[in-house]
């Protein structure tokens, strides 16, 4: 099994191997549980994938040790997510015909446009920043991963990108706001 250090230093290929291993070890018991509870294959898939995201984020933040029994941990989160989903469906279904989610659509539109812009025009910077702030890759490793000569130039590039993204978000958010109003 991969260790925590490998996980947080991971490249796309490392993460792929990591998730394949987790799927093979933990998905069968999650699928059996969801099936027993009357859920479908697609529901088991959704729940398990959300559990993987939670597990990954906790591991990247150092709030969970990969050495704890990952299979039991993933099954535990999945059960929790399934029960919450079931409760939410009962409580939040639009009983009076008004869909609360539709009201948030207008906001979502400018949000999605912004994310799309960042993910395309600013992809290079976003990938670098993702590895610092989401995957929590240590500076030295990120420098190697992204081909910088050292920690110092990686740091400079990190702040250049952060500044660029910050200004883009400000500019775009104000533009979309104008457009919607």
């Amino acid at each position, binding site marked *: 099994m991969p260790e925590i250090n490998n996980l947080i230093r991971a490249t796309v290929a490392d993460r792929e191997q990591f998730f394949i291993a987790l*799927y093979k070890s933990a998905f069968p018991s999650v699928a059996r549980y969801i*099936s027993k509870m009357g859920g479908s294959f697609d529901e*088991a898939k959704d729940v398990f994938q959300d559990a993987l995201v939670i597990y990954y984020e906790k591991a990247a933040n150092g709030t969970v040790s990969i050495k704890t029994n990952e299979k039991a941990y993933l099954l535990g989160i999945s059960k929790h997510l399934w029960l919450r989903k079931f409760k939410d469906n009962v409580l939040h279904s639009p009983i009076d015909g008004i869909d609360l989610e539709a009201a948030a659509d207008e906001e979502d539109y400018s949000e999605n446009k912004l994310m799309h812009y960042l993910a395309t025009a600013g992809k290079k910077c976003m990938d670098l920043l993702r590895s610092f702030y989401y995957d929590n890759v240590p500076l030295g490793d990120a420098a190697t991963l992204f081909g910088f000569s050292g920690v110092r130039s990686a740091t400079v590039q990190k*702040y250049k990108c952060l500044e660029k993204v910050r200004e883009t978000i*400000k500019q775009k958010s104000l533009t979309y706001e104008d457009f919607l109003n």
Partner: protein
Amino acid sequence: MRTSLIETEQIEAHLLQLSAPGDALVFEAKLLLDDELNDKLQWQKVAYNKIKLYGRNQLKQEIEAVHQSLFSQARHKSFSEKIRQIFSKR
């Protein structure tokens, strides 16, 4: 590092609570006097949230790609069969 990058670094240290106590006080005083700095701080906070959201979206796509390959490639056939059986027994 150019001045604006040092400022970005200071904003980060403030937001992530990494500054030494003395530096934190100086920075807070600056914030009170400088509207432009305040504005940058607010947008930088938004930027961290967007970066995390971006990371999460990317990760979800990576996981979905793993799922697709596990349930379509011949080399994972015994695994996918095992899962399908769980849902066909009902």
